[in-house]
Every structure is written in structure tokens, then in C-alpha cells.
């Protein structure tokens, strides 16, 4: 028996492989720059399906033998865009870069055994006796056909427990898609190699926490840089950055790797009764489906941060071409399937104006007004720094406790811009418009807009009419940014009226 095993080993040993394989199992140092999903707009991040991306740069120490070798990079993220991979530090030695997506799977194992001798193992359900015999795989496409000493048989069509076992792994199959470079070096070398690539399934945003002062004319503004990594691979002790701004990306197809199960199909199995057969034959010829994404981690507690806390770590901002780079000054671990927050902005006193806004349409309506915080992004107002897009939570204080007053989102704001943060819908200030007939033949109707305030404080209201609007009763409107503006201070518990027509 031993003699046979030896013979088989000789017959089946792979041909000599000229190329040495060098595996770099994991990066030494990592830097990661996270980019926001530009198409997300003001929507929140979906942790199960992150649409942003990251630039990952890894430094790896490798030893290469003289001659030709294949350097395999393991431990890269699953979302790697292989076309974007850049390998530096090997100079002229690089012949080509490869990425192999043929994966080891039951189907691939059996396919590689086509025409090969395998072991067929049958176990008796009655006695537990195991019987092994030689078989040759004759077909694997639609069901498995084997040739044994007895003749031709189909695998798992007899109702007996049976399986085939292979002697060795086929070449060129790996557990995950593998990135490698083919290099040629006249002598053995030891080098630091940098591998940079773009990886999908990352995202980030700014999360602003604003607290309204008791007087209501300023806020303290704090922002988290919220990074999310949707990849299984974590990046340990990484130099971490995030880029604010919108960059162009192209759609690129990445082969996710081909993995197949074994296809078991038998002949027609009709019977004279409807008794179920003792075993169900399941066709398993399918691409390996992705595991369902794990439930998103709980959202970060919004209670953290605010005005008074101290932050030992704060991201630093710098200009990068036409976008902004925020750098975490220390290395941090961006773990796989996780979200991370680091302070990025802290402005203790930003002067704001809280106004109510309305854009009336023609016709009769009744609607509440929108509360908007406005300011200008200038240092004179206590701001004057780029504000990356993100979510805003507005808090106030009542009896020393913080309460949520409103929530909204902002887009990217450059320095000097007028900042508007819609935070809530006012409930006590209402707008009601009715139509009336104007004196004169064939004139279009007029509209009477009535604003009411049930608050015990005066409220500033900005009503923006369309350009065609014409005020009545000798009132005037001023043009602003393509609208006709009526700015009015509603008295406490009072009302104001405006008549207009088109």
C-alpha cells in the first residue's frame, strides 16, 4: 500500500516550479486616507454599505531571493481596487503586477480533479464501515460522474453517504483574491516596499454638535470626524487622514473572486408515491453568496462632546490641492467593521442669528415655518474655517440639562460663505395664505399672507417671494439672491400681514 502511495505521489507531484514565492503576510506601517461618498449628499452613512473609499499605503519589509520570484501581498483590504495598486521600492525589478481571483472552493477542487484519480469514500449507515476505493472524475459540470472499478457511477445519486477526497491542492488557487508582483533581481535583496491602493467600503463625515447660548445669539460648535471602515480588514496603528471635498471617481469593475460549490444533479427522481426520499438532493452550484452584513454597530452616543470637555486628540487641517486634508496627529487603529470618532473642530462662541424662513407659493395654504441658524463663516463671527459636510445636532440647556432643539445637515462651506443650518420646524409660528379677488376686470387673484407668533419673544422672519411677485398696499420688497425678500420682525404674540399678486 505504501508503494502505491509513493507511486501516486510521484505521478501527481506538480512539475517543478521555477519561480520562488515570497509572501508578505501583513503590512509593517499603514497610512489611510478616508474619502467621503460624494453621491451621498446629506444622507447619513449606511454602515452596512459604505459608498466612500480610502487610499491605503502600506510599508512592508520583504526579502527577495536572486532570480525570478513572485511577491504576494496578503492582508490587504477586501475592497481593494487592484487597478489602482502602486508598488514602489523595487525599482526596475518589477516585471508585472498580478491579481488572481480564482479561489479555492469545493467546486474548484473538484474541477481541478477532472480526469484525475481521487478517493471515493463510502460509509455504511448500518455498520459504520468505511470503504474507500479509487475513482476517476469524469464530469463535474451538471452533476458529478465518476469511473470506478465497477463502472460508471454518479456521485450522491444512490442514497448512500459518499464523498470524494483529493490528494493535493490544485495550483494557483487561493483563499482570497491575491495581489502579487513578479520581480527579477540579480542578487538577494531586502527592501522596504510601499504598496498603495484605493479600497472601497470606507466613508466619513463631520458630526457637529452645537449648543445654543442662553441668550440665543451664539452657539458653541464642536465637530467629530466620524470615520467608518466597512471592510473586514482592520488597519492597526495607522496614520489616519480624511479628505473633505468632492472628487471625481470612475466606475470600475473588480472581480470579486470566483468560487463555486459542487453541483450535484441526478437523473429524474419521480416515484409512484409522494413519500419524500430520505435525503433531499440540493443543487449547490452557485456563486458563494456574501454573508449578510452584520447589524450596524450602535450609533455613537450624541451626548458626548459639547462645550466644556477637553480633547487630547484633535485632527489638524491642511490644504491638499483643491480639497482639505484632516490629519489625526497620532497613529490610531481603524478596526475592521467599525466606526471611529476624533475631534476635528472646536469653536466656543459662534455668533448666529436664528430666523424663520418661508418661501410662499401661489394659492391658499397653511404651513409652519422653518427655523434656520445663519451666520457667516468669518473669524469675526467666531468661525472662519472650512466646514466639511455632515450632520448638525443643536442643543439647548434647561435647568442645567441638555436638550435637543433640532437636527439638520450642512454641505461643505468655505471660509467667507454665508452658512445656513436648517434645524427644525417651528410649531408656534404659522403662515396662512388666502386668495382674494382684486378690483378690475380679468386680473389674476391676490394673496394675503398672515404670519402669527404664539411665542412671548419677537421672531425674525424672512419670506422669499418669487421674482414675479408684486407687493400691494404700497409695500415694498427688496431683491436678494434671485428672490424678493420681505424681512419682518414678528412681535411677541403678534401677527403680520402681507398682500401680493403676480
Amino acid at each position, binding site marked *: 500500500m505504501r508503494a502505491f502511495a509513493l507511486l501516486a505521489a510521484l505521478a501527481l507531484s506538480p*512539475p517543478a516550479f521555477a519561480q520562488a514565492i515570497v509572501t508578505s503576510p501583513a503590512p509593517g506601517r499603514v497610512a489611510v486616507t478616508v474619502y467621503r461618498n460624494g453621491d451621498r449628499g446629506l444622507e447619513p452613512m449606511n454602515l452596512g454599505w459604505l*459608498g466612500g473609499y480610502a487610499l491605503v499605503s502600506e510599508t512592508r519589509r520583504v526579502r527577495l531571493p536572486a532570480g525570478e520570484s513572485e511577491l504576494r501581498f496578503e492582508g490587504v483590504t477586501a475592497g481593494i481596487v487592484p487597478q489602482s495598486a502602486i508598488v514602489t521600492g523595487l525599482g526596475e525589478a518589477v516585471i*508585472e503586477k498580478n491579481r*488572481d481571483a*480564482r479561489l479555492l472552493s469545493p467546486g474548484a477542487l473538484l474541477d481541478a480533479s477532472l480526469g484525475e484519480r481521487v478517493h471515493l469514500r463510502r460509509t455504511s449507515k448500518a455498520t459504520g464501515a468505511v470503504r474507500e476505493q479509487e475513482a476517476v472524475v469524469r464530469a463535474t459540470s451538471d452533476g458529478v460522474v465518476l469511473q470506478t472499478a465497477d463502472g460508471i457511477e454518479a456521485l450522491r445519486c444512490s442514497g448512500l453517504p459518499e464523498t470524494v477526497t483529493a490528494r493535493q491542492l490544485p495550483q494557483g488557487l487561493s483563499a482570497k483574491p491575491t495581489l502579487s508582483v513578479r520581480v527579477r533581481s540579480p542578487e538577494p535583496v531586502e527592501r522596504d516596499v510601499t504598496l498603495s491602493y*484605493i479600497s472601497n467600503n470606507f466613508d466619513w463625515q463631520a458630526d457637529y454638535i452645537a449648543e445654543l447660548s442662553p441668550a440665543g445669539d451664539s452657539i458653541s460648535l464642536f465637530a467629530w470626524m466620524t470615520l467608518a471602515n466597512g471592510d473586514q480588514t482592520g488597519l492597526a496603528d495607522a496614520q489616519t487622514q480624511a479628505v473633505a471635498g*468632492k472628487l471625481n*471617481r470612475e466606475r470600475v469593475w473588480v472581480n470579486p473572486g470566483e468560487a463555486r460549490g459542487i453541483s450535484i444533479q441526478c437523473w*429524474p427522481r419521480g416515484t409512484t408515491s409522494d413519500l419524500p426520499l430520505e435525503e433531499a438532493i440540493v443543487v449547490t452550484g452557485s456563486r458563494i453568496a456574501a454573508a449578510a452584513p452584520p447589524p450596524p454597530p450602535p450609533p455613537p452616543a450624541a451626548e458626548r462632546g459639547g462645550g466644556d470637555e477637553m480633547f487630547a486628540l484633535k485632527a489638524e487641517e491642511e490644504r491638499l490641492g483643491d480639497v482639505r486634508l484632516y490629519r489625526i496627529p497620532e497613529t490610531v487603529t481603524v478596526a475592521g467593521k467599525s466606526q471611529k470618532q476624533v475631534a476635528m473642530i472646536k469653536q466656543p462662541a459662534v455668533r448666529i442669528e436664528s430666523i424663520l424662513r418661508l418661501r410662499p407659493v401661489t394659492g391658499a395654504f397653511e404651513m409652519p415655518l422653518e427655523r434656520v441658524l445663519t451666520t457667516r463663516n468669518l473669524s469675526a463671527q467666531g468661525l472662519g474655517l472650512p466646514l466639511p459636510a455632515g450632520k448638525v445636532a443643536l442643543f439647548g440647556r434647561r435647568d442645567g440639562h441638555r436638550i435637543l432643539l433640532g437636527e439638520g445637515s450642512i454641505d461643505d462651506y468655505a471660509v467667507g460663505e454665508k452658512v445656513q443650518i436648517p434645524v427644525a420646524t417651528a410649531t408656534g409660528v404659522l403662515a396662512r395664505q388666502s386668495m382674494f379677488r382684486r378690483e378690475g376686470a380679468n386680473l389674476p387673484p391676490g394673496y394675503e399672507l398672515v404670519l402669527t407668533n404664539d411665542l412671548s419673544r419677537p421672531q425674525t422672519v424672512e419670506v422669499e417671494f418669487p421674482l414675479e411677485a408684486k407687493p400691494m398696499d404700497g409695500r415694498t420688497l427688496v431683491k436678494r439672491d434671485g428672490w424678493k425678500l420681505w424681512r419682518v420682525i414678528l412681535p411677541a404674540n403678534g401677527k403680520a400681514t402681507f398682500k401680493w399678486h403676480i
Partner: protein
Amino acid sequence: MRNLLLLCTALACAAPLFAQPAVPAPGQTAQGDVAVTIYNNDRALIEDKRMLDLPAGRSRQEFRDVSAQIQPETVTLNGRGIGVVEQNFDFDLLSPSALIQNAVGQEVTLVRVNPASGAEVRERARILAANGGVVMQIGDRIEVLRDDGLPARVIFDGVPPSLRARPTLSVTLQSDGGGRRPVTLTYLTPGLGWAADYVALFDEANGRMDVQGWVTLTNNSGTPYVNANTLLVAGAVGQANPYQRPYYGGGYPPPPPPPPPMPGRTIDRSGTETAARERLGDFYLYPLPERTTIADKQTKQVSFLDVQNTPASRGYEFNNGWMTTSDQPISATTVLRFSSSRNQGLGDALPAGTIRVYQRDARGNPQFVGEHRIGHTPMGSDIGLATGQAFDVKVRPVVEERTKLSADRWRTKMRYTLTNASPKPVTVDLFQSGLWGDTRIVEESMKSARPNADQVKWGVPIPANGEATVTATFDSRY
């Protein structure tokens, strides 16, 4: 003794098995000297020179290790002293149900296994029909196979010769003599394609750029090509390919959705220079420098371009698609401008692909700042790549006034406020589109150009940390 017996039977039975048309051992291939020519549109021409051992007269030859997606109608076979009688592409696959269909009317061996004792009973059975279930005759009984649900092995005496494990190309040849001789097999196959990928490192302070170009070829044809001489053709032959099957799925996030429309063009001016590359007809050729094995499901990249210090500059564009008011200032598009000219440029034709642009951050590490796809770009072209949107440069178009002059004449006064929050002056190419042919400018605060009937363009300088305003009044039909 029992072991020895087992060994003998195993060896004895193994011998006839391998008398069948053999399947190669792993790592071996039936391919000969392979040359692969890959086009951009998921198409490749494979030329495979094999040594065949031919008997004199007619013989049938099977060709293994051809592309799994071979287009059999495109196969040609050439060789000295041979003539093709017929070519066949057999795709009747060997499977359990094909076996039983082919066994109708014939006898098979049935091994019944007693589930309680494990005892086996062997019988010969004649298959009468295999429709919905297998009806067979055993002696004088008619029975349905495994009707009782009990285990029963069906053993066929052999495999019908027409059934194959995989689709197989076979050619019947007429040879004028026996012996080994080279024959050349050529065919077309989908599943192989290529594109270029460029890495551009932009040095904004010095107005220079380093560009590396890689050809990226992909093999999804189901077959490896061993030690192949590879040639890439920058161009698409024929029409769109019916075999193309884009697939987005698996356990990975989908590719990002298409970016919002930016100024779509990338070539500002098409070049007229001829690059110093090999050419065939309309196409540039990119031969790989050495033979390589293109494994199945592999993406392979080989360098083809490395240019240092080519001049490059950054510009800004903003296009207002129609005379409308924007609620918010909108970021201008960042455009990277460079040339593919011999003089002050990359000095090469650029095959279609994606250019990824990097810039160094304050610590000197390259950071990604956007990408854009280009089409096949002749040498000598001026290229403008929209890589992203500028954080600090914004434009706000506002309709100031709209007056009806007559039933079909309108006058629209536009104001464009351009802001620059960066510490250096910039110039924005401001476009107003949607003018059709019959819109005139009545008055404007700054002289415009009319690059085409639909657009006007102003080159607006904005001071550092400053603002600029352009006003214009349009006389239009709507």
C-alpha cells in the same frame, strides 16, 4: 494480502481509465506556442501553434485547453500537408441525467444496499425510460428506480463516446503523411480585455507632473494562457460584444455609482502627432516585453509609460446649464490640464483608461485627489481632466430679472458671484449654456467669448480670498 489485492485491482482498473482521451495533469497544458492579441472591447485573437502526432490519412483530433468561451465559428487550422475535413464543436456534456438518457434500452448494474445490515445485492436491470423517473426491467419485473427510497447504486458499463466533460473542439484532418508536425490553431474569444491605468503625481507648486502608465489586462475567459506572447491593440474591432456579461455582486460593495456629470470631454484639442509606437491599421500596438502566463481570473498590469516632469496646470470651470438661480453657491470643477505632445507634453498617444491623480500632502505623502477616464487620445492633444470640485472656489448664479418683451421674446438678467477662499488668485472659465442659437447678449459686465452657439464663456479672474461678479443680460426666445 488484502492490501495487495486492493492495490492490484486499483492499478488494474486504472490502466483502462487512462486509455480514454486523457486530461492533463495539473500544471501541464496542451497549448503549444501561444500568441494572444487583446482588443479593448472584451475580445481576443488566440494563435496556438501545437505539435500534433498525425497518422497518414484521416484522423480526428481534439483540441484541449482552448478558451472556455471559444467562438467555434471563428476557428481556423493551418499546417503543412494537412487539409481540414470537418470541424466540430461538441457541447453534449457528460452528466448523470445524460448517462441515463443514453442508457435507455440498455442494461446497467443495480446494487441495492440493505439499510439495516449493509448487505449488497447485485442485479442487472434494463432501463426502459427515464422521463420524470426511471422505469426499468429487472428479470420479469418492471420497477421504478429507488421508488422505495432505499439506497441503490446504478453502475453504467461505459460512457457514450458523444458525451464530454467539457465543450470540446474537434477537427477531422486529412494528412498526407504520418508523424509529428506543427499546426496553427487560431480563434476569437471574448473574456479577455484590457485598459490603461495611469498614475499622475501632480506637483502644483512647480506646475509639473510625473505620469506612469500601466496596461491592465483581464482574463475571465475560463482558461489560462501559458507562456504567451501577448500583444495589446488600442482599439475595438467589430461591434459591441454579445458575450459581455457585466457582473456586480459577490461579497463586495458595488462599484461606486457613476459620478455626477462633470464637463464630459477630456480632450480640449485633438492631437495630430504620430507616436513612436508600432501601428497596425488604425490601431497602436502595445506588445508586452516578455512572454507571460495569463492565468484565469487574473488581472495583470505591465508598465508601458513613464514620463517625469511634464508641464501641468490647474484650472477651474463652471457651467450653468440653464438660466437659473442656485440656492447655494456651487463648487467649480477642478481641471488638470496637460498635453500629450512631443513638445512640452507626455510625448505619446494615450490608450483609453483611467487617470488617477495624486498630490503630496504637507508631510510629502502622495494623496489621491481624483480620477477621470479618457478615451483613446492621440499624441499632441491638449487634455483637461475634471478631477473633482474645488472646496474653496464657488459660483452662485442668480436670475436678477426676467422681463417679457413680446409673445416670444424674453429678457433675462443674470448675475454670477464667484468666490475664492484660497490664498492665491484663480481664474474660472465660466460657461452659461442653454442659449441655443438665437439668444443674444444685450449687455455684459465683461467681454465674453462664444465658443459655440449654445454657450458663452467668460474667463473670470478672482483675487486671493476675494470675490468677482459678472452680470449679463440675455435676449432669448423662452
